[in-house]
């Protein structure tokens, strides 16, 4: 673990930024059910841009149990901003979890124009 580790905790949601062996990970845990996540989640993920600019980052949703529809907006917005900042973002989800499969398959189909973003099912 490096000193560049950060965690956002909002109620039962935790988003952890970690670096290991030169690789960066943003891992979502718990449930995202807050009323207005755009400022808090978006702000946290945006604050990481200087740290990961022009690097690779894996955004891992597999441990996330649930997210409300309000959470999807800041996620899409940050995908666009990371793409513009030259951050190579790999989004990973669990295809055995029905809601993750539906949400991220849909996100994959609309984000093909983001050259630096890829979405991988495991």
């Amino acid at each position: 673990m490096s000193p560049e580790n950060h965690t956002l905790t909002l109620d039962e949601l935790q988003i952890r930024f970690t670096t290991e062996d030169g690789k960066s990970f943003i891992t979502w845990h718990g449930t995202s059910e807050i009323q207005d996540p755009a400022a808090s989640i978006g702000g946290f993920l945006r604050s990481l841009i200087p740290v990961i600019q022009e690097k690779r980052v894996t955004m891992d949703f597999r441990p996330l149990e649930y997210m409300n529809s309000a959470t999807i907006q800041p996620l899409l917005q940050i995908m666009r901003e990371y793409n513009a900042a030259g951050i190579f973002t790999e989004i990973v989800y669990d295809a055995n979890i029905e809601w993750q499969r539906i949400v991220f398959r849909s996100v994959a189909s609309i984000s093909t124009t983001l050259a630096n973003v890829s979405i991988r099912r495991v």
Partner: protein
Amino acid sequence: MHKSIKMDIPVAWQFVKNVKLMVEETLRSYPDNIRYSAGMVASELVGNAIKYGDRTESAPQAKFEISVTDSHVVIEVSNGVRSVDHLEQVTKRIDELAGSTNKEEFYLRRLQELLSGVSQGSQLGIYRIGYEGEFDLSYTFVNQILTIKATRGLS
């Protein structure tokens, strides 16, 4: 079997989580996908009622109801309406879904709008209920009270 639970919706965001857990518990004997979808639907509709609803003389209290029969689960949320704009947006989305055989199209279009940044606010919940949750939606607007009804077969 017929089970029905009615609750008043307080103006407290914590209730969104509580009602989702209550719905999942009510449907504990059903498959995971039904239980998850119904919890999501309850969460989205109650969240909308708290965010966009209003207490009026004719609708002093927002209300939630879940009914489960052998064949269907029905989730119903009623509340006063804060703005005509919101009422028009919600009813337009429900009408779109009701008249379509391809609910995914509307869900993807909204995601695309959010990704492109041309539209603020999520306003994805209604499409998510119809597409991801596979619930049919209908509404009434009577005496300034908006009632949204979400129904899914249990077969």
